[in-house]
């Protein structure tokens, strides 16, 4: 069997979103570099504040997840942060996040990196940790303040945000994790070398050989091994580097707009990289009902894909109102122009 299913059933005990309040329209980026605004990949993207980074954003999402989980943070046994924009090259983001949320010192803390699927990678590790009985609760975060080279096509979409989930025993879950699957190859579609500020991408690898091949492969295997199909799920969320790719992918597998539009946030906030699928999942959990099945498929450049199936439980009704909804963060919006954006993203040389 290729599926990842732990010995002891596990699920999501709590979840929490975070999106910074600033937005830059794609048309404003185009105004600077191209002079027209036809064929924008998204409407606008989220931009972090001057005092925000992956650590501060993870802290807020984690606090929201703990509020919904209704557990003492000292019960956490691991704090894992998935990101491609950790503030330090060496010093785990998880150390600061764990201290800030009041976790105990008896924890495992590490940073995960797998381009855009670092967050779901931490979720899979958390399934193993809890499912093997090594600990009751694991905090897994997918969060990014993604960088795009000025003028590059990725600058339109490289956004900031993400979500945290607490993995724990299925008996206490608001959504049980039915199964997961992970598919990985060596594909050079997108990378950033050590000490480099901006990532590079191999133009011809981005679409078919990377995003579509890996997601299609993992979804096909997941469906075959679980004996499920698109019609068995009420909601679906896919990695969303733009607005087009996830919709094309969803339609290929027979998913309808009604199934994937709730989790499709990239048109409003851009590509939140490691945060994207977990944030889409958070938006779905905000409105899901007990018994609903949710399908999630992440993609990370390099490249690989993680797929999951969740079943929502009665607990969702009691817990979702214990923290701000994903939509509340989307609605909190201040538009900025390219000059302010450049300041927020550290593009001015000050010394």
């Amino acid at each position, binding site marked *: 069997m290729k599926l990842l299913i732990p010995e002891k059933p596990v699920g999501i005990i709590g979840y929490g979103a975070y999106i*910074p*309040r*600033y937005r830059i329209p794609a048309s404003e980026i185009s105004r600077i570099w191209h002079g027209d605004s036809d064929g924008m990949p998204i409407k606008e993207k989220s931009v972090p*504040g*001057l*005092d*925000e*980074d992956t*650590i*501060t954003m993870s*802290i*807020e999402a984690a606090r929201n997840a703990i509020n919904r989980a209704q557990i003492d943070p000292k019960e956490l046994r691991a704090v894992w942060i998935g990101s491609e924009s950790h*503030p*330090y090259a060496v010093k785990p983001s998880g150390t*600061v996040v764990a*201290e*800030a*949320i*009041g976790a105990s010192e008896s924890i495992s803390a590490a940073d995960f990196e797998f381009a855009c699927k670092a967050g779901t990678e931490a979720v899979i590790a958390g399934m193993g940790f809890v499912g093997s009985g090594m600990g009751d609760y694991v905090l897994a975060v997918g969060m990014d303040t993604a960088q795009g080279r000025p003028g590059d096509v990725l600058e339109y979409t490289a956004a900031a945000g993400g979500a945290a989930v607490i993995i724990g025993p299925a008996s206490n879950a608001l959504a049980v994790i039915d199964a997961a699957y992970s598919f990985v190859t060596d594909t050079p579609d997108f990378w950033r070398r050590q000490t480099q500020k901006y990532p590079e991408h191999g133009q011809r690898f981005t679409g078919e050989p990377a995003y579509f091949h890996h997601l299609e492969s993992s979804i096909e295997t997941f469906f075959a091994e679980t004996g499920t199909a698109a019609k068995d799920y009420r909601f679906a969320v896919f990695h969303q580097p733009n607005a087009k790719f996830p919709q094309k992918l969803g339609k290929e597998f027979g998913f309808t707009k009604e199934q994937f539009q709730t989790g499709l946030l990239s048109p409003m906030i851009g590509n939140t990289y490691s945060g994207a699928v977990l944030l889409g999942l958070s938006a779905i959990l905000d409105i899901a009902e007990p018994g609903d099945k949710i399908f999630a498929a992440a993609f990370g450049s390099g490249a690989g894909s993680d797929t999951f199936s969740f079943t929502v439980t009665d607990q969702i009704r009691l817990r979702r*109102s*214990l*923290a*701000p*909804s994903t*939509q*509340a*963060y989307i*609605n*909190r919006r*201040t538009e900025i122009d390219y000059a302010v954006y450049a300041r927020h993203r550290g593009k001015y040389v*000050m*010394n």
Partner: protein
Amino acid sequence: MEAPRHWRLKKQRYSLTGEVCPHCSAKIFPPRDVCPECGQEAKTAFQFSGKGEVFSYTTINDAPSGYQEQAPYAVALVKLNEGPIVTAQLTDLGAEPVRIGMPVEMVTRRIKDDGNERGVILYGYKFRPVIAGPR
């Protein structure tokens, strides 16, 4: 170098952890081990909710060393729901004007770094307008 001092104070700075007086129940921030209300020993840790309101404020245009990159910014006296008044930066104001009585909540943010991208990053509490909308 502020790192050692910041490291000692990280609990209060990251998460607004103060103290509660076991004698008169006063909530204390910053923690000082002696109750400012009744003068007796008070070492019991207390986790503040982080909710409060703006008591007074000003705007810093000419920021001190290490803070220039965030100027101009608002600094407020925030009256916490539990009683104490703390001095802190306000953040995430967007286009919202600050007003006395504005409900705010604590967030953990970057306070400063040394600007050359080599030193340790200092994180700590700030306050922002309470997020509106469904919970």
